[in-house]
């Protein structure tokens, strides 16, 4: 059993506030992913849990016990670092056995457990090598093994895959998932990659500027973002977000941005007019009159076939184009005029301060 609680946690570096009054409970066996842009406080939070940073205020509880005063080694944690941090002067087996040695596990048991873990992470063939002779992916597996072998209740992973290339990253992501399923331990994972967060997490904690802005399952975060920031951060291609103004038009409300004027669904009738943002995910934009929701006639600026899907780009006169995703089988030509329709329940509105308007 292991439950991690962060109570009113705050961290300042001089005048800079890295983490602002954070409250969070992480249940046993959960796969938690902290995600956010650089400098949002996610790594600082992880390092406070690990004990490498002292919080300025607030406390950290593991299993109901305040651990602020405990050294990192006494917190029943394992950690995988971004740089792997393998000991370059010890061979792979000695690297993995290091933690066991610190716990004064008998020699023969050390050897047995190292072998066991090496099989689990599939690096048995590397045991006699030096870390310098291993590739990036292999080093990452070794780092994982070194952490796993001491059987801590909680695993902290600080952007463990960010130094690897895309293919390896996918492969090791699946590996992480598999290990979590097999071990049923708590994983706390930090990343700035939304895709990693989406695929791995039981629960995503989205952070920005030292605060939790939203938490929930990947689908909750994706389908129901609470702010412009979250909506923009998740999804690839990103949500179409067009700056403009909400204007009264008769009983209803209309969105105007010069080039892109759309009547809004009736559920937004009560919204106050003013500046704001209109958002819709590319995959929710329907090409051709669907019979429901607002429609717009536009010329296709660019066609980008990706195989399974095809991306269509439209001019918006703003810094980013409007994108729509269609089936790869659909044949749309550049400069063709198409009708875009926006289903009512796919439309997101955001106020000028970034908050979601429901």
């Amino acid at each position, binding site marked *: 059993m292991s439950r991690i609680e962060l109570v009113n946690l705050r961290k300042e570096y001089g005048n800079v506030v890295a983490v602002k009054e954070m409250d969070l409970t992480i249940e046993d066996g959960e796969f938690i992913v902290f995600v956010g842009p650089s400098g949002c406080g996610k790594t600082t939070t992880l390092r406070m849990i690990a004990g490498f940073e002292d919080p300025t205020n607030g406390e950290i509880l593991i299993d109901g016990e305040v651990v602020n005063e405990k050294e990192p080694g006494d917190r029943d944690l394992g950690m995988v670092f971004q740089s792997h*941090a393998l000991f370059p002067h010890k061979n792979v087996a000695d690297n993995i056995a290091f933690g066991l040695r610190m716990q004064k596990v008998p020699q023969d048991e050390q050897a047995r457990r190292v072998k066991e873990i090496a099989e689990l992470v599939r690096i048995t063939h590397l045991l006699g090598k030096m870390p310098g002779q291993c590739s990036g992916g292999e080093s990452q597996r070794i780092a994982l093994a070194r952490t796993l072998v001491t059987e801590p209740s909680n695993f902290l992973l600080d952007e463990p895959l960010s130094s690897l290339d895309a293919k390896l990253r996918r492969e090791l992501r699946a590996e992480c998932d598999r290990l979590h399923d097999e071990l049923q331990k708590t994983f706390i994972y930090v990343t700035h990659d939304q895709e990693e967060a989406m695929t791995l997490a039981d629960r995503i904690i989205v952070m920005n500027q030292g605060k939790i802005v939203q938490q929930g399952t990947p689908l909750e975060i994706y389908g129901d973002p609470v702010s412009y920031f979250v909506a923009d951060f998740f999804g690839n291609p990103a949500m179409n977000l067009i700056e403009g103004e909400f204007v009264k038009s008769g009983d209803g409300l209309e969105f105007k941005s010069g080039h892109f004027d759309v009547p809004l669904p009736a559920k937004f009738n009560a919204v106050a007019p003013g500046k704001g943002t209109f958002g819709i995910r590319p995959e929710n934009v329907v090409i051709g009159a669907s019979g429901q929701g607002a429609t717009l006639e536009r010329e296709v600026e660019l066609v980008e076939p990706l195989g399974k899907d095809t991306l269509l780009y439209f001019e918006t006169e703003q810094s980013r184009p409007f994108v729509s995703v269609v089936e790869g089988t659909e044949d749309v030509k550049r400069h063709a005029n198409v009708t875009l329709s926006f289903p009512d329940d796919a439309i997101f509105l955001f106020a000028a301060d970034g908050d979601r308007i429901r």
Partner: protein
Amino acid sequence: MAMTKSQRRMSFSAFRYLVLTFWLCIVAFPIFWMVSTSFKPDKEWFAWPPVYISENATMMNYLVVWADVSEYATNEDGDLETYTQSLQRPWEALGNSALISVIATTLSVLFGAVLAYGVSRYQILSEGRMFQLLMLRMVPPIVLVAPISIWYSALGLLDSITGLVMLYFLTTLPYAVWMSKSFIDEVPREMEQAAEILGASRARTIWEVVLPLVRSGLVATFLFILILTWSEYLLALLLSKTAVVTLPVELSKYQGSTEGRVYGRQAALSVGITLPLIVVGMIIRKHLARGFSFGMVRR
């Protein structure tokens, strides 16, 4: 007159070997001359044209200097004459030199490295203080030798090993701190944290993770400082002239001694002084570069 790429490369390569070999001669010649002279019999020391490689090579110079052997020879007037064995005690000087430089260097590197670790990890000295420390090394020692010798005479430290060791420690500590810091800085903090979270104590982490990674660097620092203390001349000359003589001072006694100029003897002694350092230098040459750049080089 355009050259092809491979022609250009060839001519650059030829130019490089030419220049490097020229400098090689300049570097090697004095050392060659020292070694060659040390084997020359006395008649060849001042011969014209100079003798480059003696055909009558002799070990006599070494024996006289290092083994206290007296040599008989004929002087210009044809009389048999003894080279009076001067009151030199090279082995004692060698012992003093070795003792003083090893003790001072050990202390300097020991405290320097620990201090450097503190600076690197806990910023126990600000950057400003670090530079002030370096400054200590940069002020010429001559400006303080006279009052130090007066003060030492009051303390009874004149002509003592302790007195020299203390000063060598002070003057080399800045280099020790700066050099070892540049090695410690290269050990990623994450490496230490990885050990820490696996349950290693502070001492354990330093012993098992940091030390093995900086060992070669510390050895380089140690030997570089050994070079400095081994060859130090000014302080040794002024603070310990009679009882505790070091090798460089011992060598300088041959200059302008009553025996006249004795090139062969000087050369034999010089070889003895230089040899240990050259051996040491060859061992550490790979590490010297990193330690010298004082963090002004990033890799």
